[in-house]
């Protein structure tokens, strides 16, 4: 599988990156060299191997649990009591590049 100019443009678009001409040609070279190295994974037969998305569901504490119970550690009662307070409005907006004091401002989304 060789990455082409077209692939680089497509993936840059998916990733919301523009990239200069120079960056695109460098990316083409680097991605091909890295993917060529990565291709050695295909030497392994993994047909009957389960994928591993994260480490925490392998802890002994979670091992006997099945299905969605395995993720019980990440859930909580959906109640307001015990939840921490939200950030005050002005603190949440403090790092915003543009704000009117109530909302984050962005360029117009819907053109007429």
């Amino acid at each position: 599988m060789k990455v082409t100019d077209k692939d680089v443009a497509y993936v840059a678009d998916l990733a919301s990156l523009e990239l200069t001409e120079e960056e695109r040609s460098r990316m083409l070279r680097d991605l091909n060299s890295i993917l060529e190295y990565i291709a050695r994974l295909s030497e392994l037969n993994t047909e009957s191997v389960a994928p591993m998305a994260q480490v925490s569901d392998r802890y002994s504490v979670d091992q006997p649990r099945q299905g969605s119970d395995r993720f019980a550690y990440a859930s909580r009662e959906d109640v307001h009591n015990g939840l921490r307070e939200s950030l005050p409005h002005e603190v949440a907006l403090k790092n915003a590049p543009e704000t009117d004091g109530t909302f984050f401002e962005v360029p117009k989304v819907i053109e007429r």
Partner: protein
Amino acid sequence: MIAGKEGTGLTIDGVRSAIAEGRTTATKLAEEFYTRIKQEDPEIGAFLTLCKDRALDQAARIDKMAAEGKPLPPLAGVPVGIKDVMVTRGVRTTAGSKILENFVPPYDSTAVARLEAAGAVVLGKLNCDEFAMGSSNENSAYHPVHNPRDKSRVPGGSSGGSAAAVAAGMAVATLGSDTGGSIRQPASFCGVVGLKPTYGRVSRYGLIAFASSLDHIGPFARTVRESALVLRTIAGRDPMDSTSADLPVPNYVAELEKPVQGLKVGIAKEYFGEGLDPEVRAAVEAAIQKLAELGCEAVPVSLPHTEYAIPTYYIVATAEASSNLARYDGVRYGYRAPNPRSLSDMYRRSRDGGFGMEVKRRIMLGTYALSAGYYDAYYLKAQKVRTLLTRDFDEAFKKVDVIAAPTSPTPAFRLGEKVNDPLAMYLADIYTVTANLAGIPGISVPCSENHEKLPIGLQLFARHFDEATLLRVAHAYEQSRKPEWVPHQRSPR
């Protein structure tokens, strides 16, 4: 300048007792460290931001406690530095990136809050590769870090500033993050101790995410004992991080002195193969011999999938990064490109202008690996090989208590040496990424120097949540090297 036994040469316990006995104050000590930073850091570049007001406020609180004769907390007055990927309330946090150049977080990460609650004095924020992506610190958008042991060389990465600050006596201990070796490799390059705990041992609340299933927070210090003290302070369940494990935190310091006789140390030939520098090999083999003299039993083990670790890591890590870094869009915080023509134009040009080349490269690789048509071939395949790599460790730890290996295939390389060859840079992580994929704890302890006086690190791994045994073996090894070599005695520069 050589740090002496007093002031900037003190250990954590030394700081606490010096303050308790009135030989110094936390305020005086903080000032001494700022003076040292002013003298040393222009040539090293470890710090990105200093927070003197916050440090002196905390020091004053400790001094008040001491003056009133109150018992001092375990890290009372200890000057520390924080890798700039952990958010600090009111103190600029950049992740080494231009995209967060002016970001002032509204909250503290849990690890930092716990250090301060234990009395530590945060001096400032430490340089690192942009978003912790790199193995040399040369991907910092601000400036590189120079290795205090040889300023023409890199300190390692991505936590290069955290390692260099401890090595140069500009902090007693520091925090770093380790996604593929970013604590252990710089520790070995700079001649200090670096510990990556088990996945879930330390809360990541407030850690700027790179690859969430691989990111860890851990300490740097000059000794294993101090690393154990810092770990004990920051470890434990945090309701703000659902991946933090609800397991008790042992007294790691008390466990250090237990005997190591009879413990089994695994040696995997896969960590001593092609590409390993002969001097590093000799140093690590001598360290294993030393462990045998201490009564440990060396046992051969096999980790047969090790050669697939780097390709697996660079798929999993970049896929997760491409998702985590989607949040930098110029809307709520961070850099926004001027005069956008449309919303999507704003996203693109803000990301283009804010991210450096390596970050873009990893976002591209990760997006590619997750894209339609390639997901099964790359991402799913890598997740399956991750299972195989983890099973290798499961099998090995049925036979042994720890595994010994080199931390890095070579000592510190020169600035600029690998900067144009991303694949060569990735291979610098060959012995460290496996512990992140499996989630097991790992530590790098200084074990020797090469003919150019560059430090070499011994790496040890242990079972999930068995930091106590990991630290015990590392401590026994470190102690056995005295008096020929004392870890907190730096060579004159």
